[in-house]
């Protein structure tokens, strides 16, 4: 068995083989093992957060991650930024006929490692196989549930609040752009793909934590524009405070990308009260994933929308971009 065949998705013996010999080798939670139609879950807290997402990233493997790691981190991060602790995860695979089993195994290894590190259990799943050329190798859908600790709603945000990012911006978008080899650039950039539950959970009990979001597609700028629109408040961002890695800065300058609009897969935008900003920054910086955390702006009532205060002291508007700079980034 070297390649995925149509029969692997038939629901028959080949499917059974694939699940028992490959999937269960890496995914072995007590909830999953009975292989029933639904998994039974226990919660200590009746307040549950749920999220779902599909992953179609191209290429499937890139420096710093792969589609499996991305799928776990994406789901975990959506729960964590909602003020909840991720608990359980579903995994649904759509695989193209002819996909190498070895590659599937690499993805599963990565899923196992990432989910264990993030403390989430994979409790249910599904496998479908489609004919050659009907999908690009492998797509993954995940649904995650978590227990709510502190509900973070956008209405919490008010004038004077601080806008914090947990680290450098644009790493994932740049990594994937380079990994596609569409540009004549001889460099390798590592994605920031990471599960953020360990970084963000310690913030839940800090008074003044107001709202969080993981800035994936569309980047930090898109998240902030959405906040400004939904709250009818203004946001002022300071260009010189935005953390960007040197390699990401160099390459995005070359390609004409703006790191503020590039995807991140291991970062959060954290909005806190003015008073809590220092405590939250300090706590973030104690964690390896938050050592470059920075306060990049403020919520204001002086104007609507998002405005960037540039390095030379000028001002320009940040808006949502209509065109997708890089499709299939996650």
């Amino acid at each position, binding site marked *: 068995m070297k390649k995925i065949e149509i029969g692997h998705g038939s629901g028959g013996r080949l499917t059974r083989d694939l699940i028992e010999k490959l999937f269960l080798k890496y995914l072995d939670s007590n909830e999953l093992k009975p292989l029933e139609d639904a998994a039974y879950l226990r919660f200590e807290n009746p307040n549950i957060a749920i999220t779902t997402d599909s992953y179609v990233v191209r290429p499937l493997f890139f420096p710093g991650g792969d589609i499996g790691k991305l799928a776990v981190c994406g789901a975990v991060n959506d729960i964590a930024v909602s003020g909840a602790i991720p608990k359980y995860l579903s995994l649904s695979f759509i695989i193209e006929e002819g996909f190498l089993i070895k590659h599937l195994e690499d993805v599963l290894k990565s899923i196992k490692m990432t989910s264990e590190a993030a403390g989430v259990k994979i409790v249910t799943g599904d496998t479908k196989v489609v004919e050659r050329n009907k999908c690009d190798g492998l797509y993954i859908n995940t649904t995650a549930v978590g227990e709510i600790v502190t509900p973070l709603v956008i209405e919490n945000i008010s004038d004077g609040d601080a806008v914090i990012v947990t680290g450098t911006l644009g790493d994932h978008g740049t990594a994937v752009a380079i990994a596609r080899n569409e*540009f004549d650039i001889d460099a390798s950039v590592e994605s920031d793909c990471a599960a953020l539950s360990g970084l963000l959970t310690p913030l839940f009990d800090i008074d003044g934590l107001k709202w969080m979001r993981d800035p994936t597609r569309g980047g930090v700028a898109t998240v902030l524009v959405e906040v400004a629109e939904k709250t009818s408040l203004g946001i002022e961002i300071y260009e010189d405070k935005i953390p960007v890695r040197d390699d990401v800065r160099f390459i995005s300058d070359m390609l004409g990308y703006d790191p503020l609009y590039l995807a991140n897969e291991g970062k959060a935008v954290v909005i806190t009260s003015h008073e809590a900003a220092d405590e939250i920054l300090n706590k973030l910086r104690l964690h390896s994933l938050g050592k470059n955390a920075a306060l990049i702006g403020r919520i204001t009532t002086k104007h609507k929308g998002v405005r960037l*205060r*540039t*390095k*030379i*002291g*000028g*001002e*320009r508007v940040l808006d949502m971009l*209509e065109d997708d700079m890089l499709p299939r980034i996650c």
Partner: protein
Amino acid sequence: MNKSENLIKHIHSLVPKDRKVKIMNVCGSHEHTIAFSGMRSLMPQNLELIPGPGCPVCVCPESDIINAIKLSKRDDVILVTYGDMLRVPTQQGSIRAEGKNFRMITSPFEAIAIAKNHSDKKIIFFSIGFETTTAPTAAILEMGIPDNLYILSSHRLTPAIMEILVKDADIGIDGFIAPGHVSAIVGSNAWNVFSEKYGIPTVVAGFEAENLLLGIVDILRQIKEGIAETTNVYSNVVRPEGNTQAQRIMHKYFEVSNVNWRGIGYIPDSGLELKSEYSARDARKVFELKEVKEEKIPGCICGEVILGKAYPSKCKLFKKACTPQSPTGPCMVSQEGSCNIWYKTN
């Protein structure tokens, strides 16, 4: 106070109090820096920074693009050109939407590689742009190109269009920021004509906001002193004589011609075509391309935007029918196009 703040303070103290001052840049990268640094928000009320014809794909005539689309439909042809060029709209669509056999390249050297890998096809390099892209095209000709590679030259000369702008009283330019990249090829001396013949202060500047501010300060200094010079605040890159080697090979393969600028019209001696001794490489001649009559895009004011007569926001289509995702006019396509830059920063 940092250096930028100092320069801005200087600009405010130098600017004449009794009249408007218009300073034009003629380079998409300059406009990019000005817009993305929010520089206009820091300028005195009566000082206007106007974007001029700095976007190469914006001025490329519709006729050449339509011919490129037609060529790409031939089974024996692969058309290769720069990425932005693929998306520029015409009355017959864009190369990307309506073309058939085409590839994006980022440098002319890739055209050679494609020609070598497809020896059974005719590779047509749709070579566009100002002096900065002409030099690399001349360089591959100098190196020797495969027999199946042809050049469709749609190159334009920056000084030629700047002379048109100077003569246009409607615009009323008080100073030029000369393009840094083009100057690296043609040399800062190439702009002497503007200070000497037309009395317009002209400064060669680079692409950092601070360097551009320095250029603006120098233009205002000249206005204050009532003089006109061509100066260079980008002297670590630009020499007075420019890149003489590049100039030599450009003159070897290309000669000036009367060409059409999209939305502007024919300007004498403002374009470059291959010299007749290289006709065998000239796609225009080998494939007997005919001129297609240009059609105005209803509502689009790209012509006025390119000439600095209108800001993009004056266009009725701006941010409505015309967006970077589905551009109606050429200035919305490229990251060097004024409408595209304004869309993202205003």
